[in-house]
């Protein structure tokens, strides 16, 4: 029987596809800590799946049962492991399972197991494409796969711009893609850089986008001299935004460290100075890092003290830190 023919109905003892299986019930201890009460359907499914695994059966019916279980409880690593084993042993195409993962991810993004499974399936797809196709056809199919994956990730990030799972997968996916893109690595990274810029321009406070950009720049720096252009890009962004928040400030000080140049040597130092001298609570993220930078590098003492006084007055959560800073 094929995967699509198998219908899971309860009790499984009366299901035509499973009635010959000898179930292995989940052991229930008489007394145990934080014991989970398993529902009758879940117990039934797990008993039969355990029976099939005990007999080392990797088949469509094992797979169907495992798929049904993860729809019920998507966080069971063991059951995803069963699905993975079946896919490999039965040499099944990844795309059917990608649809399953897509569907479950749309319901609930914040499930690690879904993204781990996705990584496995996509890695497999990359291998399949390289083995089955070559030349123009390989390039076209690879491009389709990349675009489709990026669309899914973009969709997830649109609904939750800070989704750690989606960002984590995006970076993994970029590294997987770089491994298979031969002469198109730089173009691919530049497209991602453009994506990060759109996000930052759209929401300057999108810290994940800033972090992502840092990761991309590091990747790109392996292929080209990017840092000097990047500091010019930062100048443009800071000028257009009118602010410098914590993320942008971290980015600035990271670039300075990487390029080994001092803050007061950059062409837009006046702009930064105007931001750190802003009244009250404006640009607090920059002010904090500016004071620490000046102290660490023994530079701009007068400006540092002026900003420090602002922090002591307005940065209530960290007041005692700044007072100690001033004393030392």
């Amino acid at each position, binding site marked *: 029987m094929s995967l699509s023919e198998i219908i899971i109905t309860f009790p499984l003892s009366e299901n035509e596809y499973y009635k010959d299986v000898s179930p*292995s019930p*989940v*052991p229930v*201890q008489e*007394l*145990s*800590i*934080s*014991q*989970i*009460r*398993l*529902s009758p359907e879940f117990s039934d499914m*797990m008993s039969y799946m*355990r029976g099939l*695994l*005990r007999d*080392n059966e990797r088949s469509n019916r094992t797979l169907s049962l495992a798929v049904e279980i993860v729809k*019920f*409880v998507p*966080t*069971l*690593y*063991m059951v*995803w*492991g*069963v699905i993975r084993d079946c896919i490999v042993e039965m040499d099944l195409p990844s795309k059917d399972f990608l649809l399953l993962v897509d569907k479950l991810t749309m319901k609930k993004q914040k499930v690690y*197991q879904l993204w*781990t499974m996705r990584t496995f399936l996509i890695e497999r797809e990359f291998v399949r494409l390289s083995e089955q196709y070559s030349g123009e056809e390989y390039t076209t199919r690879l491009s389709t796969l990349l675009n489709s994956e990026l669309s899914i990730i973009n969709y997830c990030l649109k609904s939750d711009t*800070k989704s*750690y799972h989606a*960002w*984590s997968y995006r970076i*993994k996916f970029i590294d997987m893609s770089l491994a298979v893109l031969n002469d198109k690595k730089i173009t691919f990274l530049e497209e991602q850089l453009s994506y990060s810029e759109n996000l930052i321009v759209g929401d300057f*406070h*999108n*810290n*994940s986008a800033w*972090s*992502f950009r*840092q*990761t991309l720049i*590091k990747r790109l720096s392996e292929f080209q001299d990017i840092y000097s252009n990047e500091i010019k890009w930062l100048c443009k962004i800071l000028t257009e935004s009118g602010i410098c*928040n*914590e*993320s942008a400030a*971290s*980015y600035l*000080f*990271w670039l300075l460290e990487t390029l080994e140049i001092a803050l007061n040597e950059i062409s837009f130092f006046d702009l930064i100075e105007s931001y750190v001298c802003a009244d009250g609570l404006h640009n607090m*993220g920059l002010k*904090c*890092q500016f004071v*620490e930078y000046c102290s660490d590098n023994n530079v701009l003492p007068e400006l540092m003290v002026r900003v420090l006084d602002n922090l002591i007055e307005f940065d*209530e*959560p*960290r*007041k*005692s*830190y700044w007072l100690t800073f001033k004393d030392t």
Partner: protein
Amino acid sequence: MLHDFVQSDALKRVCRGLLGKLPSVSMLPIRSLISYAALSPLALFNNVDFEVEDRVELIDAIYDLHSQCSSGFFASEIQSGIESFSYGDISMTFTTISVLIMLGDDLQRVNRESVCRLLRECYNDATGSFLLSREGEMDVRATFSAIATCKLLNINLKEKNEIQAGVLKCQMCDGGFGQSPGLPSHGGSTFCAISSLLLLQEMGVMTQQSVFKKCARWCLRRHNRGFHGREGKDDDTCYGFWIGGTLRNLGYLKYVNKDRWLTHLGNTARYKQGAFAKFEGTKIGDPIHLCFGCYAYAYVTESANVDSIIGVPQHCVDAVYAFEPMECK
């Protein structure tokens, strides 16, 4: 009020309930974490011996399952008795060991060879990192769980330098740590990374002070009233544990505005329910925020002695059996 809250009947009732039968199968993979969350407030501010019935039998039940696992401790009992799936999970191994010591066990019955098999199965030579389990992710949570387990069981890993290098790759330009290299800085992963580095220091692998200083500064910037886990997010009770604990471990807790923090905790305490909530605006408490809210309270008031690197009451760690060192082969 908070002082009474953490010792209240309502809170103890919730904890005891979480140690009993749980209705949701979705909790199955994190069962040990639920136990840890329920025991922590009792171990911190109350008396586990008094509050937990059948403590000894519960310990026996944990060891019974442990004996059926080929490597470490299971993520859940659904794996028990199935040879091809009888492997352990690193984070659940660490959490279960924490549960055991909070129940008053000294870990003598832990099969250290079995734990070493798990560590070997999950260690990745190329990156100096650990998988959570055969099917799990590879990130700094697993590294912390592995190193903390080694510390409690006095297991020596020869790859300490590589592991340190793997953790350091996770530090971002802002000073915080992501879950894996290149990922945004996050409070939870920062705790895991710093705790791992500090534990590795105890094992002789030193980290430059500049790493800790940069991280401490990032952590301080996470403080508003309570703490948030990432820039741009709201203050969340549990980051009092992750970020507050990290600041404590780095010697920077003295700079936190404790009045603001206490106000935040007071605003997330759900007195009648007996739990802390995630945000000030969240109506219902939950086990995870109950647990970490209690640790946060312990940190801000210094009302309980905690091993904040591992994340367990200090008296529980002190009572662990003094194992002879064991090489993890």
